[in-house]
């Protein structure tokens, strides 16, 4: 370690978490790896590290991306850094049986190979406490339906980057309607060329502008659906 480098172990918990927010912002995956280990060694639960250090850090990144202060490359680096922390926490969360908020099946629609945004959403959903089944790219309606049958998720998430592929989301929703299963799921859509009107027009439950909004929307809609079910 050079004299210029900060000794993360010398920091208090509060300062270390603040430093991890900065390190996430700067996309420093090694530092996030170290910080995650240090907090765990100090007796923090995996859930606390996830929520207070990683998710909160990414929330700040998301705000600055939305406001045009950060751009896609910086967000990607931040996401890679968060991924480093998640790799440490994931087995611990599974081991401790941390309560899942819900389950999500997510994929990029048929004809589209773009997955940066979708993977970011998947990671934020996982960080928010969802079990995420990521179907990858170029996913057709049959594959989506099959995954719904298999995983029985609360949410179906679909992503598209191209104007030419975003109409396929409606194909998937129409297939769900045909099979009589549309109302069993919350359908969230996102992607650069989409907007609120498009989401409404194709029959989605919500359009999510970015990964942070997707995570917030997913939590809110799952809670609302469960509350409505409980009151009936």
């Amino acid at each position, binding site marked *: 370690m050079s004299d210029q480098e900060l000794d993360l172990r010398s920091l208090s918990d509060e300062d270390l978490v603040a430093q991890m927010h900065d390190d996430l912002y700067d996309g420093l995956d090694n530092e996030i790896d170290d910080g995650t280990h240090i907090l765990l060694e100090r007796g923090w639960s995996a859930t606390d590290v996830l929520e207070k250090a990683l998710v909160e850090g990414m929330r700040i990144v998301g705000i600055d991306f939305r406001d045009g202060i950060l751009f896609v490359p*910086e967000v990607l680096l931040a996401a890679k850094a968060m991924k480093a922390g998640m790799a440490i926490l994931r087995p611990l969360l599974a081991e401790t049986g941390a309560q899942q908020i819900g389950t999500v099946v997510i994929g990029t629609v048929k*004809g589209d*190979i773009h*997955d940066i945004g979708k993977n970011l959403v998947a990671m934020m959903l996982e960080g928010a406490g969802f079990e995420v089944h990521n179907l990858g790219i*170029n996913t057709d309606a049959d594959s989506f339906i099959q995954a719904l049958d298999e995983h029985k998720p609360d949410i179906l998430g679909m992503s598209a980057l191209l*104007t*030419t592929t975003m109409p396929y989301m409606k194909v998937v929703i129409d297939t769900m309607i045909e099979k009589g299963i549309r109302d069993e799921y919350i359908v969230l859509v996102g992607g650069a*060329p989409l*907007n609120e009107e498009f989401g409404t027009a194709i029959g989605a439950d919500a359009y999510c502008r970015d990964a942070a909004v997707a995570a917030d929307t997913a939590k809110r809609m799952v809670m609302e659906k469960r509350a409505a079910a409980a009151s009936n």
Partner: protein
Amino acid sequence: MQPQPRTDPRPSVLVIGCGAIAREMLEVVAANGLDNVRVECLPAILHNSPERITPAVRERLERATGYDKVFIAYADCGTGGRLQALAAEFDVEMLEGAHCYQFFAGQRAFEEIAEAEIGTLYLTDYLARHFDRFVWKGLGLDRYPELLGDYFGNYTKVLYLAQTEDPERTAQAREAADRLGLAFERRFVGYGELEPALLTISSESHAHIRTQRPREEKNA
């Protein structure tokens, strides 16, 4: 000396276009003697943040007074239909397709190309010429080369849809493919649907001059 008959120096057609196809539009205008067409371009770099395209075109449309016809020389360009809605609002026409490479290749031909290999990155003459600034630096790969796989890991090849027969341009496109670690293919497509679109809008121009306004204002 006999006095010369006066001609109206003002063009009657305004084409608001993308800077990425400026050279091609000016070439079509010059080659076909479209003297009644004025081409004005917005910065090509708007493509790196497509949400800025529609407001920029709107701003220019609102100032487009004194023309018989106005045409938007953009495809959808990642605006998710917003540009199409703007064109309808102002009652003006625009180019068809998702991106410039689609109208250069032709709609049907492009659909076949895209269907045959979805992992294709398309380059035009402009993108080949400005690959470093527009794509490489635009995506931050000059600063963070480790992101190459994140951006292009799902791509398999670069298809250069050439507007011109230019060995230097082809070499640039090939070099771009090499930098991305992708296979390279070239097809000459020329100006595709751009030329007939500009010829049509030029021929539809009328003598009278009117002010471009949103449709509802016109109908009021």
